[in-house]
């Protein structure tokens, strides 16, 4: 993959570094302040998930450009325990009721495309894209 930049998440402050890198790329792509804030919030959620549940992992960013549109692609990759019940974590109210923030449904709302692959014992990869309008 070309132009891919990653931030490794091990400690809580790495979340900030991931937000910063994501925001810089979002600005370059041309996103306005509202969308920048949305992208940063989505990155926070993804990075916090890695920090809290997988222990370590990385967030990778890529500016994408096709003939018709431009956008930012975010990948959150970890080799943690994996998520056994994806339907449950994607359900509204599951993470928020535990006070854990917007959770993955929140990421899905903030972004345009969202995909998640998780294998028990092998880790989780979440891929999400937001297009410039």
């Amino acid at each position: 993959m070309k132009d891919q930049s990653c931030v490794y998440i091990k400690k809580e402050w790495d979340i900030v570094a991931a937000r910063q890198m994501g925001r810089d790329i979002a600005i370059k792509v041309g996103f306005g302040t509202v969308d920048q804030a949305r992208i940063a919030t989505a990155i926070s959620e993804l990075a916090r998930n890695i920090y809290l549940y997988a222990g370590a992992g990385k967030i990778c960013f890529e500016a994408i450009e096709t003939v018709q549109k431009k956008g930012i692609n975010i990948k959150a990759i970890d080799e943690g325990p994996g998520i056994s019940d994806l339907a449950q974590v994607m359900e509204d109210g599951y993470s928020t009721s535990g006070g854990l923030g917007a959770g993955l449904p929140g990421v899905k709302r903030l972004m345009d495309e969202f995909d998640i692959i998780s294998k028990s014992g092998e880790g989780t990869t979440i891929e999400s894209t937001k297009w410039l309008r």
Partner: protein
Amino acid sequence: MSTLRLDLENYRDLLEEYVRTKDERALYQAEQFSKQSMQQNISPEEIINIHLRSLQEIYPEMPQLILDSFDFLMETMMSYGLAYQEFQSLREKQLELKSEIAVAANMQKTLLSTVKPEMEGLDIGAMSVPSKQMNGDYHHFVMDDEGSLGVAVADVIGKGVPAALCMSMIKYAMDSFPELRMDPKYILGSLNRVVERNVDSNMFITMMYGMYNTEDHTFSYSSAGHEPGFYYSKARDEFEEFSAPGLVLGVSEDSMYEQRQKQVEKGDMIVLLTDGVTECRKGDEFIEQEEILEVIRDNKDLPSQEIVENVYKYFERLQDFQLRDDFTLIVLKRDV
């Protein structure tokens, strides 16, 4: 109120008007703007953005540090916007569930429906009202070839959908019994085995089963831990409690039920009920049993169905029209 244009230009004009006049009218417009924005799923961060851009247009000289502070505010508001969107989607889901339960409740009504028989010499009144959508009470009438009436009143310990599902099973178990006349104690014995085998061990059912013989006007009954009934003697103008020993259905495989009998005289009444009637509360207090009997006594010369309905109306009012438990009441009155 006409629809506002939910755009930057309109917001800017309203804001400018307010800052200039400090007029309540502009604030009212802001309220409308906010409500309509919510209807259009416009999130708080977008409103902040519109506010920021309006300020930039109205005050081009605005210091950069003030402008920057809005980025900070926007981040602070992100979670609120997400929470609101989540709330919206949960509300939709709730409506879906509600309508599903309504369908189930309707189906239950059809499944558990029983026809109140018209009988020579016995005036029957019956009413069963669920406190929520699904009914955890059950009552059933069955007539046999020889003119006897079988009547069952049951209550699942537990509420809501599981209780209601459980009741459907009871109904089909009873339907499957052979058509010959069966004594109440045998019916409860058979049902007990069905419940013991098929229902979760933490769900119990209480039931009173009675058989009214229209030839000799005797009423035989057995109880599986059910709320006692009341017998009204016209001659003495008195109510007395009646019940028979027996364990709740589903506790033990080989429960035995005792059967008792009453001779019913003209004008006497048999009252069968569930604890939703006797445990009806007035605020935090339980009402006294005498109060129920008093209402029945006041209405005793009316047809049985009207007695039952009047008791229901009385208690519905007592509980501010919100039943706390399912309510089932049956009155059998010998009239010839």
